[in-house]
């Protein structure tokens, strides 16, 4: 199983290395991989039917509780089959669609990476590894959407898609971790046992909210849906694969998967129903206002995803069953429609549905596929779409108080989707071929066989539901609902309300199709609502965020050193003051303070005056000489208080510093006075506060009794063990010789630095220009 998941990755990794040799054979080799996987998963059908689920376990990061456990049950098997099955078709389709493309190999690389990630998502039992694969789908879709990377719009869409799904992913990550914190495990199987604990915990609301963000962004639910139409910039096989059949369903998968664990609470259900309902209606309306085939399909996909969320949200057995069937039905017909769109685009160079017509004359098989897909989408009897629609209406009708309105919404959505489906699958193939498409001709079988196959599958499953009832849908249902009710898929339910609604849907949809013609004018009408569209709101929001970012960055990183210093020291001052006055008992113990002799007072006075002088003078040289006096007075303290070594060193170094200053100053320009009075006052205030705080703090630390253990040891052993009388020097070269050793390095580096600073100038000089 691990191999099955990882195969795609291995393949993706190998692509760049082997593409040179396999360029020719590429299109033949690649589709074999998903095909192989498809067959592999198909082999599990029987086992799942009998055992319900199979677990595989591979260790990875045991200390985090993260492993590569795979869980194959009805739901994941359905998805695995869809991923590999549709994958096979898409791979084959691509071989021709992008034939001779310079980067075909890369494309396959991304595609197989995506497939593997997707398999990982649906198969992982461990939530964290599921999340890892989840993110990988985002990344690989980023690369796929941006495949035509010369095109700025393509790049922008890729970025948008990644931003939204990435954002959702991160939020979901928090949710997953929170789930682990509450439930104690990342293993889905283990978590199932503590379902009740989780639902009753305080964090439950947070958990589902965070998970929802992840699922909604991925599955393009309102208001995060807008990345999906943008993602249609990708080559058609990508749209087919990612944006109809698989990736966008990852969110649905997630919700379905979590239903037994987190579902069946008021929050869960009401949120999902609300969001699902809004999305399905909103997107369905949008879909009939488009003329671009891909746009129509994108919005109808969003709407379909809304339906799925809606169904999962209802949460009854019927609705979950409906969801299970609809996942499959939608995948089949929507993939077909996308592939067909690709063919049309490929052959005619246009996706404008208002212009397209009459293509049945040149590409009959494609037309058949289109018809089948559109009819399945519409839910015509004998197609899989019909069954799903019936079950769905049944589900909504069972809802008591809410039944009426929810059913109405569902019917409305279905009607609009019918129109959208017809536009995509039927309209281009009816009527007369416009002259501008005369050059269109029959595409290669690699292109038309996949959609046709999908169309026939819709038909086949629709006519003979027992094919899939027990082997596939039953296990799917069990794993979503967690119940062991036996289901039955029927074509005929008798004359009842559901049938009436079906008929209503078909009739009004059909009428709408005949009266409403797709046109640019229709779209233009929607423009005035753009202002309040989520996309616009979020884009405005992100612009606002950008302005905020600009403000924040300019505010702090304003280029003025003094502002930096002020910020830092104001922060320090506040911190110190808060702690000092809040926590420290300020006192002075005069016992510890020695008396002042008058000569010390003179030196102190001299020092203070010199400091003020150095600060206030406007002449540089005077400031430097004053600095010299400060250092000199400092040395006097060192002498008075028994530090001859220190006095000597400090004085030599002070003098050298002053000397350096002098040498540097020779050519510096005149000092100017820049600051205003107010600014000086502010600075003086801050400086004094800082100085006072440091002073108080120093005094308080001074008052604390201190241990002299270390210095006593030094003094006692200086002569006996270290053979020196000058303890300071003994410390410098022996006790703490290590310091000194390093310190010499500081000097060396400083000297080297000064040397290079003075001698090396890489600025382009005038003669170079």
């Amino acid at each position, binding site marked *: 199983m691990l191999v099955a998941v990882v195969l795609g990755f291995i393949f993706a990794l190998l692509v760049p290395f082997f593409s040179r040799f396999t360029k020719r054979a590429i299109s033949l080799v690649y589709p074999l991989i998903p095909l192989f996987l498809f067959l592999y998963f198909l082999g599990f059908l029987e086992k799942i039917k009998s055992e319900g689920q199979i677990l595989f376990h591979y260790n990875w990061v045991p200390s985090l509780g993260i492993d590569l456990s795979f869980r194959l049950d009805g739901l994941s098997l359905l998805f695995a089959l869809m991923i590999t099955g549709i994958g096979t078709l898409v791979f084959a389709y691509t071989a021709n669609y992008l034939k001779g493309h310079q980067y075909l190999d890369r494309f396959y690389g991304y595609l197989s990476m995506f497939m593997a990630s997707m398999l990982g998502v649906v198969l992982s039992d461990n939530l964290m590894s599921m999340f890892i694969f989840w993110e990988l789908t985002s990344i690989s879709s980023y690369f796929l959407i941006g495949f035509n990377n010369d095109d700025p719009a393509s790049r922008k869409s890729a970025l948008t898609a990644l931003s939204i799904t990435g954002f959702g992913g991160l939020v979901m990550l928090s949710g997953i971790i929170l789930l682990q914190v509450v439930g104690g495990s990342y293993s889905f199987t283990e978590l199932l046992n503590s379902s009740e604990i989780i639902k009753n915990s305080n964090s439950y609301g947070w958990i589902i909210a965070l998970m929802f963000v992840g699922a909604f962004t991925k599955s393009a639910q309102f208001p995060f849906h807008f990345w999906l139409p943008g993602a249609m910039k990708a080559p058609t096989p990508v749209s087919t694969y990612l944006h109809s059949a698989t990736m966008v369903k990852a969110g649905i998968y997630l919700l379905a998967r979590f239903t037994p664990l987190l579902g069946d609470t008021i929050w869960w259900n009401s949120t999902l129903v609300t969001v699902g309902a809004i999305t399905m209606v909103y997107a369905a309306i949008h879909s009939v206002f488009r003329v671009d085939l891909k746009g129509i399909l994108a919005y109808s996909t969003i709407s379909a995803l809304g339906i799925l969320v809606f169904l999962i949200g209802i949460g009854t057995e019927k609705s979950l069953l409906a969801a299970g069937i609809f996942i499959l039905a939608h995948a089949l017909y929507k993939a077909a429609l996308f592939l067909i769109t690709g063919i049309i685009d490929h052959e005619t160079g246009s996706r404008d549905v208002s212009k397209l017509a009459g293509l049945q004359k040149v590409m009959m098989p494609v037309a058949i596929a289109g018809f089948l897909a559109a009819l399945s989408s519409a839910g015509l009897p004998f197609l899989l779409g019909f069954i799903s629609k019936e079950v769905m209406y049944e589900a909504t009708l069972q809802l008591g108080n809410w039944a009426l309105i929810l059913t109405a919404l569902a019917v409305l959505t279905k009607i609009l989707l019918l129109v959208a489906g017809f536009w995509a699958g039927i309209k281009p193939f009816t009527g007369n071929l416009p002259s501008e498409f005369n050059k269109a001709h029959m595409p290669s079988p690699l292109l038309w066989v996949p959609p046709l196959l999908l169309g026939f599958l819709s038909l086949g499953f629709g006519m003979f539901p027992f094919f899939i009832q027990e082997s596939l849908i039953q296990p799917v249902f069990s794993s979503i609902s967690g119940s062991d009710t036996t289901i039955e898929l029927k074509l005929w339910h008798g004359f009842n309300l559901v049938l009436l609604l079906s008929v209503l849907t078909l009739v009004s949809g059909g009428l709408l199709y005949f009266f409403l013609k797709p046109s640019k004018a229709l779209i233009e009408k929607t423009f005035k609502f753009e202002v309040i569209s989520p996309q616009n709101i979020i884009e405005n929001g992100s612009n606002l965020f950008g302005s905020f970012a600009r403000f924040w960055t300019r505010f702090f990183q304003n280029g003025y050193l003094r502002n930096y210093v002020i910020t830092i020291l104001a922060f320090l001052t506040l911190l110190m003051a808060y702690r000092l006055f809040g926590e420290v008992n300020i006192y002075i113990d005069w016992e510890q303070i020695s008396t002042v002799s008058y000569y010390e007072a003179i*030196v102190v006075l001299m020092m203070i005056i010199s400091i003020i002088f150095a600060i206030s003078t406007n002449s540089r040289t005077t400031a430097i000489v004053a600095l010299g006096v400060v250092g000199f007075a400092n040395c006097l303290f060192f002498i008075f208080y028994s530090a001859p070594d220190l006095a000597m060193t400090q004085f030599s170094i002070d003098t050298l510093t002053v000397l350096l200053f002098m040498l540097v100053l020779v050519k510096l320009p005149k000092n100017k006075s820049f600051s205003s009075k107010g600014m000086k006052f502010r600075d003086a205030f801050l400086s004094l506060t800082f100085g006072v705080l440091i002073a108080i703090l120093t005094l308080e630390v001074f008052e604390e009794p201190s241990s002299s253990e270390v210095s006593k040891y030094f003094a006692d052993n200086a002569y006996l063990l270290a053979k020196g009388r000058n303890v300071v020097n003994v410390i410098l070269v022996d006790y703490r010789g290590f310091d000194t050793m390093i310190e010499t390095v500081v000097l060396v580096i400083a000297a080297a630095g000064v040397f290079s600073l003075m001698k090396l100038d890489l600025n382009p000089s005038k003669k170079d220009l």
Partner: protein
Amino acid sequence: MSLYDYFNWIIIPILGLSVILVFIRFLKGPSLPDRVIALDMLILISVCIIAIYSIQTNQSTFLDVAMLFALIAFLSTSAYAFYLEQRQRK
């Protein structure tokens, strides 16, 4: 009167007074050479103070500091002179 007291109450006050006078010159300037000579003088007075202090504390080690001070006073004077001349040359 002991040596210590004599120094403490007679000599050091005189030196302290000198320091103040020189320091006033330092503050007044007006030219850089004035300040430099004042600084030089300050250091030289401190050589004296150190000498006195070493007697008071009976620590001859301080005299070495005095030696260094004298050396540095010379260095800084010559450096300032150097600087002044360089600046003029410019």
